[in-house]
């Protein structure tokens, strides 16, 4: 009986020795059980004056609950908001996690910043952790990759813009908006969407310039919740489109018939693009008359030609413009003209033989006068 009691006492003593010391943790020991398991900075890379969030998650890796008094995020450079939300946190159970989110404004120059995350433990010191935050104000790049050599007022042309992301983080909601300063476009905007780092995208606009100006396009995008904009400019200078259709009127013959004239000739497209709806007519002071007030040639491909005939009324000696009207594929109207000098046109349909004809007839009249005069003289002389 006595030996059995000794065993029981020894066992109790042994149990007391093996009671975990956790009920009596030191501050260092308690802090060691609380681990910062993850953090998120959104946007990943700030731009100057961007507003974002820093989210930190902590986990109790120990076997005893840990009481947290408050949590803070401190920074001497970045502006931090929302810390008052965590002035009283509570206890975090074993194996549980808590996440703490702070609002951060990067009102600092570009650079790397390390606000520190502070956890005040009620019963055991604190935990501190540095969160890296990057501020980089590099904006998206935008460049013109295709545009015509020269523009023509009122003529539609295509412009291609390339947008690239040189940043280290992804940007969202990227779109290109034409600002329409002195020009109009078919598209009101072109949406690209997301651009990951080093990614680029092309957009094309059909623009119609109204004046010689610098066409501006705005590239708008979001870095987190922050909206940013960069401009790309395209200078516009007006000039002659070297490839456009060019109408040439030649082989012109003008015939006179009483009070009206008939002009016949050939119309040729000497340009590099099609000429649509080609019409030949005359302008003032000529007055188009029937049967051919205007002659519709139709479409002429490059190097193609067709004949025409136009009738009009004008005063002899006047200069009358012979006009060729045509359109391009966009419906823009063009006009080429040559001047007809009616002074060289013979009046009446008989070929103009110059002064030889009247002289012949004058000579015949003189001969007739001479003959008749001679006969009359002879008849009276006989008397």
């Amino acid at each position, binding site marked *: 009986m006595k030996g059995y009691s000794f065993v029981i006492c020894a066992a109790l003593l042994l149990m007391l020795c093996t009671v975990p010391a956790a009920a009596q943790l030191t501050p260092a020991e308690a802090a060691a059980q609380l681990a910062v398991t993850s953090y998120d900075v959104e946007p990943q890379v700030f731009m100057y004056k961007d507003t974002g969030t820093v989210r930190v998650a902590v986990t109790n890796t120990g076997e005893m609950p840990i009481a947290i008094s408050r949590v803070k995020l401190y920074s001497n450079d970045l502006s931090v908001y929302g810390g008052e939300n965590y002035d009283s946190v509570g206890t975090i159970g074993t194996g549980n996690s808590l996440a703490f989110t702070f609002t951060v404004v990067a009102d600092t120059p570009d650079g790397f910043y390390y606000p520190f995350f502070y956890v005040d433990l009620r019963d055991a010191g604190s935990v501190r952790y540095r969160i890296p935050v990057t501020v980089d104000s590099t904006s998206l790049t935008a460049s013109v990759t295709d545009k015509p050599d020269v523009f023509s007022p009122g003529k539609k042309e295509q412009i291609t813009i390339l947008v690239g992301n040189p940043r280290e983080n992804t940007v969202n909601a990227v779109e290109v908006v034409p600002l329409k300063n002195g020009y109009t476009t078919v598209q009101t905007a072109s949406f690209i969407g997301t651009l990951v780092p080093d990614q680029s995208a092309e957009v094309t606009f059909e623009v119609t310039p109204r004046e010689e100006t610098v066409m501006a396009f705005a590239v708008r995008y979001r870095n987190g919740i922050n909206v940013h904009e960069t401009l790309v400019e395209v200078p516009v200078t007006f000039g002659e489109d070297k490839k456009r259709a060019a109408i040439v009127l030649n082989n012109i013959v003008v*015939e006179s*018939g*009483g*009070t*009206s004239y008939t002009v016949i000739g050939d119309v040729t497209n000497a340009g590099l693009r099609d000429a649509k709806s080609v019409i030949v007519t005359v302008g003032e002071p000529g007055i188009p*008359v*029937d*049967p051919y007030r205007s002659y519709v040639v139709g479409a002429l491909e490059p190097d193609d030609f067709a004949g025409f005939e136009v*009738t009009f009324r004008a005063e002899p000696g006047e200069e009358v413009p012979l006009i060729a009207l045509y359109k391009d594929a966009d419906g823009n109207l063009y006009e080429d003209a040559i001047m007809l000098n009616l002074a060289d046109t013979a*009046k*009446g*349909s*008989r070929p103009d033989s110059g002064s030889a*004809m*009247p002289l012949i*007839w*004058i000579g*015949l*009249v003189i001969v*007739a*006068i001479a003959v*008749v005069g001679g*006969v*009359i003289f*002879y*008849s009276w002389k*006989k*008397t």
Partner: protein
Amino acid sequence: MGTYRDLLVNPRVFFDGMFTGEKPDLKIPVVIVLVIALLSGVTAMRVSSVTAQLMPAELAGMGAMMGAFGFIAAFIMAFLMWVIWAALFHGISALRGGKGSFNNTLAVAGYGFAPQIISGIISAAVSWWYFSGVTLPVITDPLQIQEVAKELMAAPELMAVSAIGMVFYLWSANIWIFGLMEARRIGAKDAAIAVLIPFAALALFTLWQYIG
């Protein structure tokens, strides 16, 4: 009475003794006027058919009808002018003391048209030649027809022919003077007055047509 050559170059000899009988022979004067009427008709027919082409499309088909109408009108007008000229000569010479029947004056007037045959041939030939090569405009406004026709007739060729016609009328006037002297038994001066007054009126009228 002389030969027909004398009619042209020595009318005094031609008319000498012609009007001693009761009635003069009008056959030859009628033939002369008939030839002139035919020539005038041909010229007028040519001009009328060309002028018809100036009409709007709906009337242009009347070219043949207008040509025939022109021929008939000119044919009749030739005989009418013969009578009118004779009447003028008879009336004015009567004021100058002329005596004799109207038939005599009619005969003189008819013989006096002989040179008009030559000018009629010239006029017909030139008209055919000229209008065969003319290109007429299409006119939609009828008010322009007269203007265009006037411009066509103002061609130098046609004006020259008209001038030659007047010169040959002078030749006719010379024959009429000698004829009236014999037919109306008046002096040269009176005969000249009787002929030259209507002749001058004709000349002025012709001149006014081109200048006006």
